[in-house]
């Protein structure tokens, strides 16, 4: 056990894990967090807390993670490289651990151009790979990047993201291997709609033996409408949505769109459960947190194992 978190325990014991996601409020309003947390409680093993996602200023990931702990839930604190330099990041990791946070995800971060402060300076002192190395060094060698000893090393369960569909496809598995070598204990992928392509990716992962070195959680997002499906296909970077999904959503019409979206999602989960090397799912019900319970229930993933 590296961190002893709920997520780590479930994955280590070979059980199929379910993680959810919570987007912090665009302000200091705690009630938003409470509402979303309520919808996720009991339906997931731990909850990703995004870090100024899409470069839009929201309550900090560390603060929200700490609030979730107070509520008796387990956070996966996301940390992006866009806004902080190595000094701030290591400092926040100390603080996070002290506040009870045990899972951390090291990500690059969306470019600030997408957000509500496009004129901000971007930091990227470290990239996600180097951040992984840093957290691992802090945990295992008890040293900060600069070499000083740590008083009370943070024992984190370290996560990273992988996008099986981004360019160049052939390189994605190599990059995943690098992340594992850098210190990733678990991986969450971007949401998957093209099952065939993902299965090919997992084949390449298994060929390198990576599935035995890292826990991979496949990303899933339920579609609410054909408009959303099209948006994901055309506007979101690194996302692949096969035409047949668009067709299905369109065919469902306005009335049945959500129901069809849920069906597709549950089918995807069933299929993912069969893929060797997939140790869980990361359910990102964007702006549809109340669907989480329905999805995990229908996918036969309830009840969640005890913490």
């Amino acid at each position: 056990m590296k961190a002893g978190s709920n997520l780590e325990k479930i994955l280590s014991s070979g059980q199929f894990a379910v993680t959810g996601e919570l987007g912090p409020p665009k302000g200091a309003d705690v009630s938003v967090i409470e509402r979303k947390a309520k919808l996720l409680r009991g339906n997931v093993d731990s909850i990703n807390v995004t870090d100024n996602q899409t470069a839009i200023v929201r309550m900090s990931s560390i603060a929200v993670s700490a609030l979730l702990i107070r509520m008796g839930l387990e956070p996966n604190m996301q940390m992006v490289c866009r806004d902080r330099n190595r000094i701030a990041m290591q400092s926040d990791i100390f603080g996070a651990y002290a506040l009870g946070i045990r899972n951390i995800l090291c990500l690059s971060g969306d470019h600030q151009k997408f957000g509500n402060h496009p004129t901000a300076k971007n930091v990227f002192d470290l990239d996600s790979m180097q951040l992984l190395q840093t957290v691992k060094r802090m945990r295992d060698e008890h040293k900060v990047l600069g070499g000083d000893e740590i008083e009370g090393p943070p024992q984190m369960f370290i996560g990273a993201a992988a996008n099986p569909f981004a360019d160049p496809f052939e390189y994605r598995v190599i990059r995943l291997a690098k992340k594992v070598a850098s210190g990733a204990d678990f991986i969450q992928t971007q949401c998957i709609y093209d099952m065939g392509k993902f299965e090919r990716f997992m084949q390449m992962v298994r060929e390198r033996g990576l599935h035995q070195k890292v826990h991979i959680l496949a990303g899933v997002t339920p579609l609410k409408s054909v408009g959303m499906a099209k948006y994901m296909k055309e506007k979101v970077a690194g996302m692949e949505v096969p035409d047949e999904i668009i067709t299905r959503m369109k065919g469902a019409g306005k009335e049945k769109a959500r129901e069809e979206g849920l069906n597709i999602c549950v089918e995807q989960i069933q299929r993912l459960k069969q893929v060797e090397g997939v140790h869980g799912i990361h359910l990102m019900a964007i702006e549809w947190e109340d669907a989480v319970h329905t999805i995990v229930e229908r996918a036969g993933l309830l009840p969640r194992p005890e913490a």
Partner: protein
Amino acid sequence: MIIAEGKPIKDILAMIEPYDKIIVAGCKGCVTVCSTGGEKEVGILSSALRLARQTQGRQLEIKEVTLERQCDTEYLEPLREYIDSYPAVLSLACGAGIQFLAEKFRKHPVLPAVDTQFIGVTEEQGVWTERCQACGNCVLDQTGGICPVARCSKSLFNGPCGGSKNGKCEIDSQVDCGWQLIYDRLKELGQLEKLEVVMPVKSWSTSRDGGPRKRVREDLKI
């Protein structure tokens, strides 16, 4: 070379507002090559400023001059002959040249007529793009001759991130993904194994982050 772009005329007019007589100084270096501050552009800007002033019923006397360079003392000296007859200088050189001119002629306000943008190359006539960020620690041998600092929007050293689409950066479909370029090039060179190594954390102290930089060659100091 250094690429710069002319400031909007109304901004320049605001800067020269207090003056009826100025020197407009171009540079035959980089700004000539990127058609921003050479002899021709000095002529165009001077015409435009004179016309604009005349529509306001004011005059503007301009001495148009294009120096060899503005970043070397010897090439700035010729100004000394007549600069005292003019209350201000409007320079079209890059930021370095403008500042050096200001340093050499302390009694004269030196105003920037251009925005200095980046170190880049001429992709085709009329199109210039960024290539180098002057980070002070070049890794081009490891990345197939393509710079991750300048050409990746996030300056990642172990890219690409998950945002690229069809080899283009997430920020703009017209901008190449720097890491796609690196990947393609290393593939062409048969050096893909370089991408299996994690590139270590960068020291930014050799770049601007470390403070204003200086280079000295003792053997050349007279």
